[in-house]
């Protein structure tokens, strides 16, 4: 088997492209045939293709200013290479282009009915969105049956129920239908599908009886004011009359207010409980509250003794005054601690910011040191070799070195000695 993109394959692709007279503007194949759609309302005559007499699909405008569907003009041009309206000669490739955006927008905004209308979808949607609706969302779209060995299709809304392609007997007419079609059969085909409602005598579809019972004028229904105590039950059609005269009608609004008040009460109780807990917490924190009796006396005392204080702080009792003082203190402490936190944070940030460049410099210095060390080692090696050569007694040594030789120290004892004597010239 040849690898992909072999020359032959490329050739095939180009020839098919060349065979097609015109490829530009071909819309991506969509699941919905836009020409088969039912348009809501009357489509403007200016948006209708003169060839297929339907609102344009992928409109193309010619050099002679006529607009056609892409598919239509390609088809017409293949038979006769002229403009289908004015019969002027037309070159498809060079004398046509996609119609202006405004035309596309107008077409996109046309309202259409969902193509699954016959299956019960009543959606009316902009034409540009119908594709998405049908492919992804419409409950009535037929999709392959979820059962792996079943090859039939089923509406999307039933796809979660497993394979419905088995025979089931209609409970009203004894006919056998596939389970998937049974509901449809009972809705519109079954000869026994209709029956008269036992209460109101109106003909109803049997399997929608439950829905009918919710609005049957004869069905027994409790009074609208049942929550407020009315125990009367009667057929729906009498209920309206009864409601107007029901004794509980007056109570009704009161009842609603009562419910509102109850809800408010619940909220308040909850608040109260929270407050209680807070007080208990404070008591446990080492502020033993004076007993109730003493509080009273103390309160009296403070009231009588320091009227100025009570004016500043209109508290009911001394305890509450202390409590509020305590709370303000607490909040101050909280503020202080947060300020402290902030200062700490700022300091650590500053410290960090300053240490960072120092660290950088340090690493830089370290690397420079390393480089220097390497230089030194290389130079010393160099010097060492030179010394070695001198030691063997080369005749072409400069005078200074011969002097050293005469000193008798053929080699320096330590490497650093040489460095000290002859600092390397860098």
């Amino acid at each position, binding site marked *: 088997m040849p690898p992909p993109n072999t020359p032959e394959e490329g050739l095939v692709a180009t020839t098919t492209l060349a065979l097609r007279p015109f490829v530009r503007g071909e819309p991506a194949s969509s699941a919905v045939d836009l020409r*088969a759609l039912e348009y809501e309302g009357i489509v403007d005559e200016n948006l209708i293709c*003169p*060839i297929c007499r*339907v609102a344009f699909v992928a409109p193309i405008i010619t050099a002679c200013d006529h607009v056609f569907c892409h598919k239509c003009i390609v088809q017409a041009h293949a038979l*006769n290479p002229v403009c*289908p*309206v004015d019969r002027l000669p037309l070159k498809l490739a060079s004398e046509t282009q996609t119609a202006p955006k405004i035309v596309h927008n107008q077409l996109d905004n046309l309202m259409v009915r969902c193509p699954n209308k016959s299956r019960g979808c009543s959606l009316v949607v902009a034409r540009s969105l119908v594709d998405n609706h049908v492919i992804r969302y419409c409950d009535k779209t037929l999709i392959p049956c979820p059962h792996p060995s079943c090859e039939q299709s089923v509406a999307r809304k039933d796809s979660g129920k497993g394979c419905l392609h088995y025979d089931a007997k209609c409970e009203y007419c004894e006919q056998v239908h596939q389970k998937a079609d049974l509901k449809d059969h009972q809705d519109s085909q079954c000869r026994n599908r209709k029956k008269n409602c036992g209460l109101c005598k109106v003909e109803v579809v049997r399997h929608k009886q439950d829905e009918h019972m919710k609005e049957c004028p004869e069905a027994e229904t409790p009074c609208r004011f049942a929550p407020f105590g009315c125990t009367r039950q009667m057929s729906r059609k009498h209920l309206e009359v009864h409601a107007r005269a029901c004794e509980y009608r007056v109570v009704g609004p009161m009842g609603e207010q009562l419910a509102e008040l109850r809800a408010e009460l619940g909220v308040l109780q909850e608040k109260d409980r929270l407050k209680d807990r807070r007080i208990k917490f404070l008591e446990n924190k080492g502020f033993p509250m004076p007993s109730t009796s003493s509080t009273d006396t103390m309160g009296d005392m403070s009231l009588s003794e320091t009227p100025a204080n009570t004016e500043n702080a209109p508290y009911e009792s001394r305890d509450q005054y202390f409590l509020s003082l305590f709370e303000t203190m607490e909040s101050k402490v909280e503020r202080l601690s947060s300020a402290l936190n902030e200062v700490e944070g700022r300091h650590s940030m500053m410290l960090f910011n300053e240490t960072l460049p120092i660290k950088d410099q340090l690493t830089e210095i370290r690397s420079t040191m390393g480089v220097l060390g390497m230089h030194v080692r290389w130079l010393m090696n160099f010097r060492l070799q030179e010394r070695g050569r001198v030691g063997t007694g080369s005749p072409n040594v400069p005078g200074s070195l011969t002097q050293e030789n005469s000193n008798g120290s053929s080699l320096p004892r330590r490497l650093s000695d040489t460095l000290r004597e002859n600092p390397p010239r860098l």
Partner: protein
Amino acid sequence: MSSAQKRISKEFQECTTSPPPGMTITLPSETDLHKWSIQLTGPPNTPYANGVFNLTLSLPTEYPFKAPAVNFATRIWHPNVTNDATGNICLSVLKPENWKPASRVKGVLEAVRQLLVEPNPDDPLEARIADEFRTDRAEFDKNARSYVAQYAKAGK
């Protein structure tokens, strides 16, 4: 339904709801949209007045890219219609070089009716009738009326 079928059914609907004057259009077979039958009442103030003419219109499968074919099923004395059982009509819009996909059946039918009001003796199918039309108008009118009386009586 293909787009061609869709167009044809649309045109049929259009022609039945607002037909050209004096015409009633029906489908001989409910299943075949490509064959139409038309009943045309002769336009007033012409020798064909009060005549009832049956026409057949057949739409090719390539419609609207190819022109439809219209024939008189009722015989008629007219320079542009063959004086035989086929009843071919010489109509410029139906000629292949003149047909364009943007043309519509309704336009064709209106042209057919116009041909009865104003025959075109310069482009005749029946040269004898055309000659008569040009030279002896009274004789032509008489012949045309007698054809109407013979073949195109209402209720026939």
